[in-house]
């Protein structure tokens, strides 16, 4: 335990903690304006998340890597169970009730999938990814993602794909496989447009390309989000003083569009502070991966970095109106227990990797 604190990387805990606390202030501001009590619950979730962080950082990550296959099986069972017997909450069958607070196994599933991928590729000495291994990874990510899609939660399913993308990034792919992936992705898009995407999802994409075509419908979100951000200006309207948030022009303001609320009240200056915090967090994670001595820990930390970063990127681009509404929250900042616990668990794993490297020396 002494060693644990000796080698503890504080930036991996306090950077995300500052982000989450700022987020709680924003949730408080929303509470003041609308009476939605998300900030109180988020505090509870943060406490749970910190516990998860310490569990994952204290227990050796290798322990979890070994546990990964059985956890994966368990995940598939739970997700299948949910599709068959789960109740629909907020349009999706992905929730399990825990004493009034719901959790989404699909969120935790990302930890399991990342662990399993890192385990499988821990002895991957073959250079760039080949077809067979790519399919192996695709299958591991694809099965739970498909179950999540069946549970009607496209947003979360999309975050699963970030694992695959990051994997390709780190291991690299052979040229012909890259061509295959690009062609496959295009075919997949066309296929999903015709068979997978629901009408409302198609409409989102169509309206995204021309938001003014439906200013009070689907395009409304995008337009209102931009108005909210833009009207904040350089210094913002001041804490608790946002008008857009207050009068309910912004939808999903505690989840998908929480950054817009923040931007309205704290302005461009606030955005600089927040994004620099994220950047520092990404750098801290990157450092841990960069000094890794084996592929499995490099892969594990790298995948976690990719997971958090891509969620961050997509959420912000949606808020800015650069991407259609995707239903992806801002990690560490948005309201959401499962997501918060998941991200802190992942950061706990990174902390664990960091500590075990130095404690070995």
């Amino acid at each position: 335990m002494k060693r644990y604190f000796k080698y503890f990387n504080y930036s991996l805990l306090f950077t995300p903690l500052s982000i989450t606390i700022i987020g709680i202030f924003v949730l408080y501001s929303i509470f003041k304006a609308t009476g939605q009590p998300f900030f109180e619950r988020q505090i509870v979730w943060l406490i749970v998340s910190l516990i998860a962080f310490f569990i994952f950082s204290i227990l050796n990550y290798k322990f979890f890597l070994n546990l990964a296959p059985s956890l994966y099986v368990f995940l598939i069972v739970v997700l299948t169970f949910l599709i068959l017997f789960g109740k629909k909450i907020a349009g999706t069958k992905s929730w399990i009730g825990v004493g009034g607070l719901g959790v989404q196994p699909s969120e935790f599933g990302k930890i399991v999938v990342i662990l399993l991928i890192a385990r499988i590729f821990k002895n991957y000495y073959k250079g760039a990814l080949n077809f067979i291994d790519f399919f192996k990874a695709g299958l591991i990510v694809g099965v739970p993602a498909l179950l999540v899609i069946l549970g009607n939660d496209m947003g979360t399913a999309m975050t699963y794909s970030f694992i695959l993308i990051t994997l390709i990034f780190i291991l690299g792919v052979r040229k012909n496989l890259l061509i295959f992936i690009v062609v496959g992705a295009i075919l997949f898009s066309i296929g999903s447009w015709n068979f997978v995407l629901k009408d409302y999802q198609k409409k989102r994409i169509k309206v995204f390309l021309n938001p003014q075509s439906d200013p009070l419908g689907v395009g409304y979100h995008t337009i209102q989000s931009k108005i909210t951000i833009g009207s904040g200006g350089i210094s913002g309207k001041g804490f608790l003083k946002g008008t857009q948030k207050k009068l309910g022009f912004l939808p999903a303001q505690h989840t998908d569009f929480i950054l817009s609320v923040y931007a309205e009240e704290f302005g461009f200056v606030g955005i600089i502070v927040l994004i620099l915090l994220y950047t520092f967090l990404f750098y801290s994670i990157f450092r841990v991966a960069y000094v890794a001595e084996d592929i499995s820990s490099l892969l594990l930390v790298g995948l976690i970095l990719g997971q958090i970063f891509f969620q961050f990127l997509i959420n912000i681009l949606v808020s800015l109106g650069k991407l259609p509404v995707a239903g992806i929250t801002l990690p560490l900042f948005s309201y959401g227990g499962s997501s918060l616990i998941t991200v802190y668990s992942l950061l706990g794993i990174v902390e664990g990797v960091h500590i075990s490297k130095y404690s070995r020396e």
Partner: protein
Amino acid sequence: MIFNTEYKRKILLQSNKRNLKLLFIFILFFIFLIFLFFWKIQVIDYEKYFLAAQRNIIRVERISPLRGLIKDSKGNIIADNRLSFDLIIPKENMISSKRKSTEKEIKEILNMLKKGDKYELKNMGTYYLVKEDIPLNIANFIFSNRREFRYVSIRVSPRRLYPLGESCSSFIGYIGEANLKEIRKFGLKTGDFVGKYGLERYYENELKGKAGYKVKVVNNLNILERIVREVPPVAGKTLTLSINLSLQKKVEEFMKEENLIGSTIVLNPKNGEILSLVTTPLFNPNLFTSYFSKKDWDKLVSTEGKPLINKAISGLYPAGSIFKLVVGLAGLEEGLINENTIVNCYGYKEIYNKIFHCWNAAGHGPMNITKAIEQSCDVYFYVLGKNLKIDLIEKYAKMLGLGKYTGIDLVGEKSGLVPSREWKFKRFHIKWFPGETISVAIGQGPLLVTPIQIAQLFSIIANRGFYFPPHLLKTRKNKKIFVKIKRENFEKIIKGMWLVVNGEKGTGRLAKLDGINVCGKTSTVQVISKETLKTKVKNKKDKRWLHHAWFGAFAPCESPEIVVVSMLEHAGGGGEVAAPLVRKVMKYYFNNIKENR
């Protein structure tokens, strides 16, 4: 083998780290991009989004002001306001999700109105107008059944009401929905009513009042959060006119009784106040205060006698014999004639090798100026006109207010035309022929006047040399204007005018009143020459070929209180038709109005 694997592992780890570094550079690049996006939206486009956020929450509701009242000199209301109930739909109730329910409610209400189920939505900014001016009982029903009628609304707004109907339409004019030009000129909003003609137009700025407004903050469902500011509307000013309503109504009645088309003006020469101004046919200005069908409009416009045109100020007519007063004054003032100057009338006169006929073919015999006015002898004025020449006639006509605006407080006044050498050359590029002066001397030729100019001319004569330009607004104080003609010359002309009414051979004897000295002058304007009527016209009985009848008068002669001028289109001889009408008006005035004043 182990070494080989270990070596490979190291190499691969290095390459993976290189990739990882690339990933991090990729991350930094996107973070930089995100900063740029925020910079653009929050710093560069800040103003745009700030205004959009304002628009999101601020709704400004306009409160229409009451239009100013118009009253006669005794305080009787001529133009009033009433409440109108308009069926409207707030715009947010027409978005796709609510449209069906809204349309169902509209249909239901239209059924109650029994006016067919076709309707048009008129875009009024924040709402659509469905039906204007729905009956009170239906508006009430909608109000009291708010649960059933959730999407439609009733807007209560003031509307113009003319309680007298047709009466006074001659000078009141009418209102109508403001067009783009008027919206800009008077600072109005779409759908506002604006004075289009008559007093309603001339005093638009005074009458329109100032709209009030409520600034409301609403939420995303357009539900009121709070009222930020409320400014009540300011009603337009009340206009008190010099019009005497009972006289006005009486004159209207006199003219309607005999189906006369034309104008009658009664004014007080001592201050220029118009006591009554009637132009027939009358129309009902209430027609213009709400929805006005094209059919009604077409009907009104095609009515014989053009009711929508104020002929008292925009009707251009030859002056005829009334102009002899002007020529006579010019002759006396210039010293070309005096009361002893005699001209013999043989029923015609040859001037510049052309025969000019007197209206009395038998001839009037020896004429001096007073007799020539009494009997309206053309020959006397042919000779005088020849001596004066066009330049002096023009000078005096203009001095006496002809050929220029009187400046009456109504819109659409015409200036008329006093011919001159300059005018002729500009208009036709040829010089003036002396022969033309001869017809101008008896008020024919290109000379054109309006009835209001003649009424003003009669005030000048009645006052013996000064006048106040005519006006309708009681409080409008016009300057006293002097005319440089000697009083004695006016007296000579007035003597002739007295004879017109009271002399043995006067042309206007039908205007004579017992106990009051009336002075006047007749004028009969041929609209077609006798030869043309004989040879070229088929239906000789057609009213269109009848003469225009003028009669102007003032009384009492010694100290005139009123001037009455009547101009009747295609009615016959001035002495036969117009003089009796003027007599009736004067009689009514002296019996009923004078004591009350």
